[in-house]
């Protein structure tokens, strides 16, 4: 218990000092800063064009699948950390089990790559999707 406290209290003190310092800087700049009133100041910047629907804009998230893969592969990292720290104790049996685990994930990665789940550009070709489909079936024949 004593050792844990001696490890953690400097971090807590460091964190407090840090937050106080940053907040003080923010307040200082708030006090020292000028306050200008200009007509175009309060518009979102869009390279000179007057913004349309500024806070209703939504973009398609092409990156959604990456987020899903991230959850899978980052969990893998956590399991592997547990193996790596006990590496000397687990020896060859541990290595074989871990490598089975790693190879399953490598195979999963290869599969994801082969079905095209990792490529962002595929999604933009939806207009051509029909022609691709036709070519595909022709090849099969």
């Amino acid at each position, binding site marked *: 218990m004593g050792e844990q406290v001696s490890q953690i209290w400097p971090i807590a003190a460091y964190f407090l000092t840090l937050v106080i310092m940053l907040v003080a800087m923010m307040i200082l700049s708030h006090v020292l*800063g*000028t306050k200008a009133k200009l007509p175009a100041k309060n*518009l979102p910047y869009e390279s000179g064009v007057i913004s349309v629907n500024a806070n209703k804009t939504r973009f398609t998230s092409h990156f959604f699948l990456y987020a899903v893969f991230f959850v899978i*592969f980052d969990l893998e*990292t956590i399991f592997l950390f547990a193996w790596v720290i006990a590496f000397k104790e687990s020896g060859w049996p541990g290595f074989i089990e871990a490598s089975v685990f790693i190879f399953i994930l490598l195979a999963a990665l290869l599969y994801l790559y082969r079905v095209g789940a990792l490529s*962002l550009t595929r999604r933009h070709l939806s207009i051509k999707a029909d022609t691709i489909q036709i070519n595909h079936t022709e090849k099969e024949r």
Partner: protein
Amino acid sequence: MHDTWLKLFEISIILGLLIPSAAMLVWVERRLIGIWQDRLGPNRVGPFGILQSFADLIKILGKEDWVPPFSDKLVFIVAPVIGAVCVLMSFAVIPFSPNIGVADLNIGLLFFLAMASLAVYSVVLAGWASNSKYALLGGMRAAAQTVSYEVFMGLSLMGVVLLSGSFNLREIVLSQQSGWFIQTQFVGFIVFFIAGIAESHRLPFDLPEAETELTAGFHTEYSGLKFALFFLGEYLGVMLISCMSVVLFFGGWLMPEPLASWLPAIVWYLLKVSVLVMVFILLRTSLPRPRFDQLLLFGWKYMLPLALVNLLVTAVLALTEVI
């Protein structure tokens, strides 16, 4: 009690030196890029322009503390603070020399990884809270990029943990006395360094703030001190990745014997860090920016398998006692 005050003094010294050195790094970078691109760079304020960053800092304090009326105000103000806090907190576990360092944490490496992951919140929240199209695009890119490069950042460090058998950064340094880990973990270092560049949003991986296409990306709407905090966070990120690389792969403060006695340990450590920082700057001057989907695919297709294979090979070599 005496020790407690000494520790508090040490903490304030470390904090008090980190922020000015990040400001100096801005000057160093601008000067070096100037030299490499055959132009002058900042050379007016003080000898060799050395006071340029401090002049900028004073000027920035006098700028308006502007919160856009169309933004999500609370999140807008908090986002840059989160970024700066996360990066600065990571420095708490770094051992600068045998007895300098804020905390000697048993899970130091995991703490660093956790803070590096939390730092993305600042970018994503800033992009979201700005309610501006460029900012939103930048924030989304930052999320995708971090999610892709986070995965193998942890994996690339596992070889080091495997060889040293500890998450404690001080013990990792001490286990390199017979030879730095760069000898056996070269692939791991390369993968970690690439992930680090992506995490700190530096060129060639600065897609979230790519100025040629997104103006300034996630911090388009930021100005004054809040912008300076993002800027500070980026440069501290460069220093952080360099510090961690030295601790994990280049033997921290250790040097081979005849050299070690010439200079104090902390000086050797800082010398190694500055060499790596220069590599960061050199990369920025020499490499173009890739397309965004190429960047993501590169991470998943090459870096992730490479990190996994590196771990397996290291494990086999360690079990057969080759290394």
